[in-house]
């Protein structure tokens, strides 16, 4: 083990280029900034996760095991706000996008390294403000901030929470901008658009959504603050506003935001499936353009959150049709990934298990989306646990599996060391099983009619709630295992070498951990992505 340590430090790389807290807090190296994000989003995940655990414990009893309804409301609001805005949205883009976008195109850094560091500081300022808001006093609007509840009726920390989300939004916009410019302007010679790894197509599509969508939610939250503080009538009918307007504005961002969470995971899965079956991706251009199609259509489906809101029937019909349209590119991706395995040389190291887990959970989550796009069925299951189950399959099952897959795949590149593969595979299995036990019962609860966001429920729903809580305890263990062995591996893991998986892609052609400048000299690209045949 000690020889391993010597081996890693025998040459200069981005981790030993400099030491001390200042070398991290003032760094403009995209790889170090990625690690700043990795540490901070892990902390936010822990806070949001603790809230989730408390929610599931509370719901073991029909009358609520722990909290008063008011405290429960603050708890699920905290869970939602932190997980959505401070874990899921930044997760893959800010960590792996930061680390990999320059490396995958053969560049030295992002186009705007200082802006990149600024993005992290903006994210942290927003995050700290939100932590203050949800922990000291709390906020009880849910992550959706629906009006006029949020503008007129609640007395909690709405302003500081909304301000925190508003500020963090700029981090998202600037990161997206940085990626778009980098991908356009800094590709190595020979790296044409259609030679780019699909992860980059996914990051590009995600960045477009971040740039175009985030300003809308920022404006919306600013209007909430304006109405709450100065009583300007925008959303509350008592002062001449329109409460439905808020929902239009909010979902115009927040539906595409779901694709900010899932598109990067889809990009990751394309990398993993190809590597662990030693095959080029089946239907490259279909997978690439389906990312772009998802990004475009995602802006046109927000009204499916409002089928029962009192919006006109005709608006409902159009949004229903458009929501079905977004199912098609998602299906195309799943079929192409499956076909990539055909006649491959398939191995099952941990990252591959996460990728297959992603396909399974995303399929189940995506298909239940059809229920919610169907007007007559949505009328029954809207705002019930069916919806809670559906979006957790996508945002936790899908996005989280993709995130963990990425973490396990690129961990040797980031740290230079391998983790114990057996433990990692065990964790993947535990998470997959725990996840299904937690969230599958929620589909049934929703079909039975249990509303979401209630602290007290009728006793006939108890069995399924207890099942869900039991599953959550397994899931929590599943998430805890990687935390242990990954930290362990940083010191004791065997040295990985530049390319432990035999993967293709520029990031694997440089040592692990990479030198500060990524590549000794600018690489020249002469082949397609996933050229596993060569």
């Amino acid at each position, binding site marked *: 083990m000690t020889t391993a340590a010597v081996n890693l430090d025998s040459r200069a790389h981005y981790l030993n280029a400099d030491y001390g807290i200042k070398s991290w807090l003032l760094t403009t190296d995209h790889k170090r900034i990625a690690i700043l994000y990795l540490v901070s989003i892990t902390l936010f995940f822990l806070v949001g996760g603790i809230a989730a655990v408390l929610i599931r414990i509370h719901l073991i009893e029909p009358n609520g095991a722990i909290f008063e309804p008011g405290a429960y409301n603050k708890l699920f609001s905290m869970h939602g706000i932190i997980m959505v805005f401070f874990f899921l949205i930044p997760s893959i883009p800010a960590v792996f996008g930061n680390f990999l976008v320059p490396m995958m195109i053969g560049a030295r850094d992002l186009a705007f390294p200082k802006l990149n560091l600024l993005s992290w500081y903006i994210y942290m300022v927003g995050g700290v403000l939100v932590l203050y808001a949800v922990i000291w006093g709390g906020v009880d609007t849910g992550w959706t901030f629906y009006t006029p*509840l949020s503008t007129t009726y609640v007395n909690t920390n709405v302003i500081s929470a909304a301000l925190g989300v508003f500020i963090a939004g700029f981090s998202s916009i600037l990161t997206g901008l940085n990626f778009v410019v980098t991908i356009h302007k800094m590709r190595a010679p020979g790296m044409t658009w259609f030679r780019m790894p699909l992860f980059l197509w996914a990051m590009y599509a995600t960045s477009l959504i971040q740039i175009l969508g985030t300003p809308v939610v920022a404006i919306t939250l600013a209007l909430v603050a304006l109405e709450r503080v100065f009583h300007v009538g925008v959303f509350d009918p008592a002062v001449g506003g329109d409460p439905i307007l808020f929902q239009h504005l909010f979902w115009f961002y927040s539906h595409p935001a779901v694709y900010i969470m899932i598109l990067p995971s889809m990009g990751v899965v394309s990398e993993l499936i190809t590597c662990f079956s030693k095959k080029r991706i089946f239907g490259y251009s279909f997978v690439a353009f389906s990312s772009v199609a998802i990004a475009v259509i995602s802006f046109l489906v927000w009204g499916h959150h409002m089928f029962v809101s009192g919006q006109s029937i005709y608006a409902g019909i159009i949004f229903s049709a458009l929501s079905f349209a977004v199912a098609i590119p998602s299906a195309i991706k799943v079929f192409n990934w499956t076909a990539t395995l055909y006649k491959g040389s398939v191995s099952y190291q941990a990252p591959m298990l996460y990728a297959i887990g992603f396909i399974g959970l995303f399929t189940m989550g995506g298909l239940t989306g059809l229920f919610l796009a169907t007007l007559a069925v949505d009328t029954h299951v809207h*705002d019930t646990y069916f919806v809670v189950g559906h979006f957790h399959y996508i945002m936790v099952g899908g996005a989280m599996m993709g995130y963990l897959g990425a973490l396990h795949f690129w961990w040797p590149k980031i740290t230079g060391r391998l983790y114990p593969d057996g433990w990692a595979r065990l964790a993947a299995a535990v998470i997959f099983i725990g996840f299904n036990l937690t969230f599958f019962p929620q589909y049934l609860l929703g079909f039975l009619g249990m509303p979401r966001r209630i602290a*007290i429920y009728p006793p006939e729903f108890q069995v399924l709630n207890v099942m869900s809580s039991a599953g959550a305890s397994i899931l929590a263990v599943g998430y805890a295992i990687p935390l242990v062995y990954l930290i362990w591996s940083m010191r004791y893991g065997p040295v990985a070498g530049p390319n432990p998986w035999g993967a293709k892609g520029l990031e694997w052609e440089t040592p692990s951990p990479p030198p500060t400048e990524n590549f000794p000299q600018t690489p020249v690209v002469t082949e397609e992505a996933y050229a596993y045949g060569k």
Partner: protein
Amino acid sequence: MWQGFSIRPDQGSTIAQGVDHLFYFLVAIDLFFTAVIFLTIFYFALRYRRRSEREQPEQIEGNLPLELVWTLIPLGICVVVFLWGTSLFIRNSRPPAASTEIFVVGKQWMWKLQHPEGAEEINELHIPVNQPIKLTMTSEDVIHDFSVPAFRIKKDVVPGMYTTLWFQATQTGKFHLFCDQYCGTNHSLMKGYVIVMAPTEYEQWLSGGVRGGTMAEAGAKLYDQLACITCHGTGKGPSLVGIYGRPVKLSDGSTVVADEAYVRESVLYPSAKIVEGYPPIMPTFKGQVTEEQLLQLIAYIKSLGPQEGKASK
């Protein structure tokens, strides 16, 4: 803990079965595609597992016909489900003409219900079986949502506007009524029951207890108290006799149908729409009438057939 456990909700209304059929059809599609994907992955995973590190699998670029197949088949299924769901939704959204009207006001954190005959209830709605019921709903404060899972119906209850729902119960019994839109601190407690009764029992229930007259009568009393008659009965303002449900010509040349939303707006924001030929002199009654009183005034105006002539005398 297992008491009342079931994984199928009651089918308590005429629309429940239709919704369930579509739901189960979707379940079948889900199971089919999940099985196809899972089994294919498992099969490929075993059949093509890596046997040696030096293996060089044949590289396949893609297959256009296959891409078309798995684009067009899901597309076709989506079209079918969309058309089915949409036609059912349109049918389920249109109340029959013969519906009994009941009025719903949501407020933090209770449901207030008024029957046209005058009966008022909180968190319990008594209705007759096999009779179409139309709910006209509004909120005094935040957005609520009136949901009866056994009937497969749900609609947001929004401040500042009227939304409607209808259903026809097919069996007597007691069914959950939930608020499905998070509405603040005691959202969890904003719930109750819909109690479906045999028609005779319902009549008995309606006539029982001390009641202050029908909604229209209560509205008439308000009409007097608020002195609406000083204008609307003298020609200073437009007559309200027989206007309900009829087109009204406005001073800007447009016409509007005098429905609940129009009457409500005219009481609260009289200058929003001015009837042609009348000066904009009506004061606002905002803050003077509650949402329930507004509904009573509407019930009264609805009751003013052309021949009764009470308002114009």
